[in-house]
């Protein structure tokens, strides 16, 4: 996956300053957009987190008041614990499934294209539509799709999203269903990048299939997997749509996530933008940790700055 930069810009010539300036001018509109949509709000969020708001203006400076009241609330710790559970489950389910998929699909010859395509399709669906679709699957009534299927096997109807212990793993299953095909493709590409001669050489040395998996395939996957795992943690940590649409955080806050809590502060009937901003800062700090980890892991593989 190394990519060498083949081009080095020539920097000779007298109009060096003008050239720099014109280059910046070309980038300026885009930089302004980034500032407006991404960097600015992030910084403003920090400021806002120390204030109360009225309408959409800052009202009173409250110091760490917003943070204090967030940390004091049981809701926050529930949301935090749940978010960690989302992450753990997504490592158990969401991380391993694509690897398994890549391994088995990678072994097929005939129909490989079909399997790859089929498993990728859920990924192109709008997230919201996919989530709403699953309300019908997880309904606890006997018309729920899973209950219909269970009935064929004589199993009594079950409840799903209304079970405290099930709701998080089920939500993770939904997002795995949606995303696994795309992730599997990345693994497959990584695997197909393995030099076939390695396998052949290993065979000559008398390595059986399992040995080849252990000593050639697994290391390749691990290499890719460490990056993907951190990316996945970062994504799962921001889980919002699923609890928002499927359960409203219930039952008994069992699926409330940090992002959804933040959303609720702002738009859930209290209009507490300051508190929402504080929650946003807290989430950002946690993500920042993961991001640093990511850059560390990633630095070994790519050097972005050329």
């Amino acid at each position, binding site marked *: 996956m190394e990519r060498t930069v083949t081009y080095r810009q020539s920097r000779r010539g007298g109009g060096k300053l003008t050239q720099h300036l014109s280059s910046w001018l070309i980038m300026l509109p885009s930089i302004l957009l980034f500032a407006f949509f991404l960097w600015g709000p992030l910084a403003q969020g920090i400021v806002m987190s120390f204030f109360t708001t009225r*309408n959409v203006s800052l009202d009173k400076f409250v110091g760490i008041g917003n943070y204090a009241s967030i940390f004091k609330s049981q809701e926050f710790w529930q949301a935090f614990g749940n978010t960690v559970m989302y992450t753990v489950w997504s490592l158990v389910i969401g991380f391993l499934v694509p690897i398994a998929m890549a391994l088995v699909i990678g072994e097929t010859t005939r129909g490989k294209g079909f399997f790859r395509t089929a498993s990728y399709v859920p990924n192109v669906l709008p997230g919201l539509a996919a989530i709403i679709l699953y309300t019908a699957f997880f309904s606890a*009534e006997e018309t729920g799709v899973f209950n219909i299927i269970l009935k064929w096997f004589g199993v009594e109807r079950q*409840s799903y999203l209304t*079970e405290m212990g099930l709701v998080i793993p089920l939500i993770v299953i939904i997002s795995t269903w949606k995303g696994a095909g795309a992730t599997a493709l990345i693994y497959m590409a990584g695997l197909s990048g393995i030099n076939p001669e390695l396998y052949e050489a290993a065979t000559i040395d008398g390595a059986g299939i399992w040995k080849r998996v252990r000593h050639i395939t697994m290391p390749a996957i691990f290499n890719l997997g460490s990056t993907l795992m951190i990316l996945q943690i970062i994504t799962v940590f921001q889980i919002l749509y699923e609890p928002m649409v499927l359960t409203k955080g*219930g*039952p008994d806050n069992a699926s409330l996530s940090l992002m959804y809590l933040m959303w609720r502060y702002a738009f859930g*009937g209290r209009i507490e933008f300051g508190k929402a901003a504080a929650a946003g800062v807290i989430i950002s700090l946690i993500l920042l940790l993961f991001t640093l980890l990511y850059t560390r892991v990633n630095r070994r593989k790519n050097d972005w700055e050329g």
Partner: protein
Amino acid sequence: MKTRLLALAAALSILLAACASPSATTGNVPGSDPANDPSPSPATPPVEAPSELLEVDSEVIDADLTCTITAGNYPADTAPEAEIAVFDGYIDILKKQYPNVTVIPDYYHYTLDTYISRAVGGSAPTIFQPPFTDPPILIDQGLVADVHDALEQFELVDKFSESFIDMLSDDNGRLYGLPRDGYVMGLHLNLNLFEEAGLMNEDGTPMYPKTLQELAETGKIIKEKTGKAGLVFPASDSFGGWMFTCLAWNFGAVGENAMQYQDENGKWIINLTSDACVQALAYVKSLKWEYDILNADTTTSTWASCHTTLGTGEAAMNFAANDAVSNPTAGAGLAVDKFAMVPYPAGPAGAYALTGGTAYMFAPDTTTDQAVAALALLKINGLLPFVTESTEAGMRAAQAALRDRGGPVLPPVPAWDDEEFVAKQREISEEYSNVDMRLYNDYFNSLADGSITLKGEEPMLTQDFYREITRAVQAVIVREDRDPLAALQSAQDNFQAYIDDQLGQ
């Protein structure tokens, strides 16, 4: 603000008790405004109306009034064509009365989150319809306009009941809106299931439960005989707490056992661990684990989905109000003669029913001229306490359309203190009646004869309060081993901490 909220609660009960006869209007519940459901909304539709509307009240009232208003109370784009045609008819009349007023249709389904966005972005509709839970926060946050002067021009201020003044005004007594309609909670029934379960009297009326205990037993019979849920119960989001509140009152969580009260120092106290609350929650728990009469998706059911569940015959009973009678019928296809509405079942400590309603409020930048124009439109619509040819035509149009869509046409629960107006509303609803009133009389009589006590929502941070209680409700529904007292204790501790934090007390 505190006093305003308290006053609102008290006020509502007084108002509705005084009027004591219900309305066929859309109302609402925490977090949802069914007024804009494609199904209900009897406030607007017509069929034979447009022609009538064209002939009335067309002389000019004020040619100098020049302004443009956006009408957020315009029907949804998914509404039947006829309903939209009637509203266009109202606008035509307005144009004749006020030739220089322009009305821009701007259908708006009010929700607090989107309203903030519109209000601060300068694009809130001139007039819109929030539920009674929201005016205090909107006024407090400066998100709505002072329309006191316009209301005075229409001589409406004197017709406000004291309670509405409290809810809709600021600390200086300036008014920011007006009531649209109210609702009183009762019990909706699907008579198909009552018939199937053999729970009908010979005269064709249902043997409905008069007490909460009977409700559990009736539900059980229905479950056994039909396999369908006895009761559909919305325990998601803030609905569970909302439902619980009314149950708890009937178990005695009122007066000195109130769930929210101020102590002698004015500090707000949350009291969810009274025997009354514990019994009420134990009751909910028994509905699930002892009687097993609840629908399976309880904790993801919302107010609106419950109406569908009842209307499609998946449940026989639903705690719901008079404002939503067209949801299970016109909305979900239940024939109007297979639907009934009966009083809220009494509990061991009395008979209480929750009341609430919907207001009209105005975008923060609304001028007095615009407010006058918007009020003129409401007047034509038949929603202000005036009886004129055009208001009468408006009322007829609404009832006719409701009847055509298969919703029950019922007597009104008026929002204004005006006998002539209320009498006219009643007369027209009788004229268009499509129901056997014996299926509704007990409900309406209970309001009139005072056998049921009407009570407004709990006053403080209502939606959040309900959401906190919902957790306790969900806990006992999803976990058989969850102790009601422990669940309520946790909710009480959380909410006490939250309210202390919010009020700085």
